[in-house]
């Protein structure tokens, strides 16, 4: 298939003051592809993930989603963001709204979906992530794993073209990591386009089409999970893998 990639980053650069956090990043994500970004802390993975829906601005370079350049601000940007789902490390569920309201808010306010239809769909999605019975609770009443699954349902409710996951399991207790990963693996199987920043190597092996290894603001290596974990080409990647896979 030679269709144009869904997400294209070309020569993207970004500085935080003196720090050059993204250095000439070139990355394409195709429809239905699951790309996992890994690398040591401070390598720029999360920043890269956040530039794709412009939660972080970039200094130079271009980012296009589905052929359209990312608008700088205003309604155009809001519309584009509605097509790019985002799941955060700290869940960021709307604290004053119930689980159901969290999921229906986007469809109601942005897509102007009729309320009945939005709620029906929200309940289906909550059922899909296994928490339909908590629909009328508030986020603070749920466990971390449950909150993150609601956040995934909230992203799905917008029927996004791609979902970004910014370390979705890093803030979770160990026993809750699996329930969130299971939901993500199922999404990947269903053909959702995903960009996932994670430290879960098991997930990368199981669900990723491609692993992108970043260090010091650069993409150091890109490969299939089997190739990357089996025979990393660069010393930096070998060093990283030796540190995390020995346990």
């Amino acid at each position, binding site marked *: 298939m030679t269709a144009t990639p869904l997400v294209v980053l070309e020569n993207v650069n970004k500085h935080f003051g003196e720090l050059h956090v993204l250095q000439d990043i070139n990355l394409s994500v195709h429809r239905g592809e699951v790309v996992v970004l890994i690398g040591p802390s401070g390598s720029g993975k999360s920043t890269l993930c956040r530039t794709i829906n412009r*939660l972080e601005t970039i200094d130079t370079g271009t980012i296009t989603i589905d052929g359209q350049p990312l608008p700088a601000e205003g309604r155009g940007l*809001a519309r584009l963001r509605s*097509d790019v789902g985002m799941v955060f490390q700290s869940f*960021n569920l*709307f604290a004053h709204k119930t689980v159901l309201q969290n999921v229906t808010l986007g469809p109601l*306010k942005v897509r102007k979906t009729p309320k009945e239809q939005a709620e029906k769909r929200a309940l289906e999605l909550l059922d899909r992530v296994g928490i339909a019975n908590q629909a009328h609770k*508030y986020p603070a*009443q749920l466990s971390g794993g449950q909150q993150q699954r609601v956040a995934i349902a909230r992203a799905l409710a*917008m029927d996004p073209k791609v979902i970004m996951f910014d370390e979705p399991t890093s803030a979770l207790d160990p026993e809750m990591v699996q329930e969130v990963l299971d939901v993500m693996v199922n999404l990947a199987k269903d053909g959702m386009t995903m960009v996932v920043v994670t430290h879960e190597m098991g997930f990368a092996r199981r669900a990723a089409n491609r692993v992108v290894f970043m260090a010091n603001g650069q993409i150091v290596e890109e490969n299939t999970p089997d190739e990357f974990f089996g025979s990393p080409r660069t010393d930096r990647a070998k060093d990283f893998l030796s540190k995390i896979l020995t346990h």
Partner: protein
Amino acid sequence: MNVVLENLGPILEAFWSTVLLSVASAIGALVLGTLLAGMRVSPVPVLRASGTLYVNTMRNTPLTLVLLFCGLGLGNTLGLKFSETVTVNSYWLAVVGLSAYTASFVCESLRAGINTVPMGQAEAARSVGLTFGQTMTTIILPQAFRSVVGPLGSVLIALIKNTTIASLIGVAEAAASMRTLIEFNGNAVIPIFIGFALGFMVLTLPTGFLFGWLSKRLAVAR
């Protein structure tokens, strides 16, 4: 205390006018203050600057000057008329002044509240595709309001007491009624003072309790 009891009718009438003044000004201040808070956190520099200028001007001008300006400046010199009836006109001029003044305090309380809402809430709202306006009205301000219900109660109590200055521009509220009463009953100044102080406490104490209760009830669990 007899003086107070004998004149209970006119006194209650004056306090009623204090209540009306407070309610109208509270609504005006809340609306204007929310708008100002929105301006002060907006991404548009011109809006931010005008919001800041307004708040700093109003908050640092004595209320007496603000109300005299409304009565003499707006009312007499510029000829702003809300009604042909003089008392109704001065009532609305006072509402304008009190709202404009109190709005700056509401704005600052709310802005403090906005700072208690974690950054992630706004990021999540923007990620869903909400515009700046929608993010403010559906996510940030509702949570900000809930976290500053207590401080807003204090602002409201201050407003209720501040209405006494409206007598300066001819509004027949409680302080004006007290002055009249003292004029005719120079021998009972202390009981009259106590009577009116109690009257204000009847208004402000429940307000404080109500807002304290509300702030506990509406608190956002995180």
